[in-house]
């Protein structure tokens, strides 16, 4: 499979934001792998040349790849353990509680939370990026907040 110049431009344009997204989804240790695998699959896809919104397509690929990664219970537990041991970064207990709560969400809920809160994306744009309906965005966000509120005892 050839890697065209335009593909390189797309990658360089979006790699940083996609990597942040992957980090929030799977943690820093697996984020680069997830991004690489997602990009390889996207560009290798026969439909890639027909994709009009490549940014959205790549976001979905990262989410799909992250979900595959997180399906492995061992990996998930390993991630939680590393976070709990402060291996990734020195964390205050409160930060650890919040991050643990974020990782208790489903990947899709976490995606919506991240895009809404960190990337400041409007609902319609999140729907487009993740390939879900506008109503689903509201639902995932509302449910994620309810879970977080409960987990954080607020």
């Amino acid at each position, binding site marked *: *499979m050839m*890697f065209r110049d335009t593909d*390189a431009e797309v*990658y360089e344009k979006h*790699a940083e934001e996609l*990597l942040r997204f992957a*980090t*929030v989804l799977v943690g*820093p*240790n697996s*984020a*680069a792998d997830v991004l*690489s*695998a997602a990009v*390889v*699959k*996207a*560009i*290798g*896809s026969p*439909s890639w040349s027909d994709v009009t919104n490549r940014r959205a*397509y790549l976001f*979905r*690929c990262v989410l*799909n790849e992250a979900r595959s990664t997180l399906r492995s219970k061992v990996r998930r537990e390993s991630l939680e353990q590393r976070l709990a041991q402060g291996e*990734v*970064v020195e*964390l205050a207990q409160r*930060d650890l509680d*919040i991050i643990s*709560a*974020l990782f208790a969400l489903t990947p899709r809920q976490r995606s919506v*939370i991240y895009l*809404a*809160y*960190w990337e*400041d*994306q*409007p*609902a*319609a744009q*999140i729907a487009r990026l993740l*390939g*879900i*309906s*506008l*109503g*689903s*965005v*509201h*639902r995932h*966000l*509302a*449910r994620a*907040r*309810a879970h977080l*509120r*409960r987990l*954080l005892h*607020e």
Partner: protein
Amino acid sequence: MSDLDTSIHQGLRRLVDTTPMVPSLEGIKTSLSRENPPFRGPRMPRRPVLVGVAALVLVGGLTGWLFGSGPGARTAVSAATVLKQAESVAATSTTDTLGAGQYLYERTNSVESVYTASNGHSWTYQLPHTEQVWLAADGSGRERLTPGAPTFPTSTDQAAWTAAGSPALTEFESPVSDLTYPTLPSPVATSPTDSFGQQLKAAATIAAGNSAGLVAFPYNQISALPTSPAALRSTLVSTYEGGRANSQTTFSLAASLLEEAPSAALRVALFQMIGTLPGVSAKNRSAVGGDKATGLSLTSDQDEVTLLIDPSTAEILEVTNQYLGSPASLTTGGSALFGVTTFFTQGKVVSSISST
């Protein structure tokens, strides 16, 4: 900004701060060259979206939900006519009052349509679930979600799933949940200068969402909304959309508010406001579960939101969010949720909260 919002942002900041170095382009190229073939999934058959819609009809048992010129379809009417009729009925509706210890109870059945491509096959399936919400004036309450078993709209879909090895249909499955909502401050403060996803945050701050993809608003919030259409729209945009007007978001918010609007004046204002949104059109669907209905829809970027209204009560019977493009275009060999239809099986009943 609430404490929860601050916490979420704090947690995200900590995570984002750990973002590693971007993988090199060379590494990606090398990985790509090793892929042979890089992507084994076949091109997905371009499944007409009506297949998905028809599936929803089957799953929901909505034998009377008809399109176009089918039997039972009505003569096309304009959105203005639908809205005028709804306004006149809403003007005569009674105003509910939630006292201490009373809750707005609502039960909905929803069906999510999922497109999946796996192992060289593609299919559509539906995930049903029932949701009950008790919501007090102060935002406190309870939400119970009970998922149902996945079903296939057609034997062809089921055959494709079987041929793919009968993989688990759990990607979009909602777990059983029973949540308690805490009391919320009133009114929820939102700042036009708040930088954190205002549009969503504000809506979701108000309470918890239900499976319709709608957002439940405490009465003590919406009772303060203006009843002039222009002022109402302006307030929704500034308060709940972060000042960035988006007609479809406003339309969806209006649908949520119509579910709960405690006063006839606000209901009328909501219908009038919908009439000011560009792109709203009448939807020629004539019946839901045997009930006569009139419909309104708004499409933006291939996302269609449709409200079906009971013409005799001006109550919302159904809300549908539907992606009008090819579901296959939403995924790369995985699954994509491309439609959600919610039926209000028991709406807006003042009750005590269930203890079981």
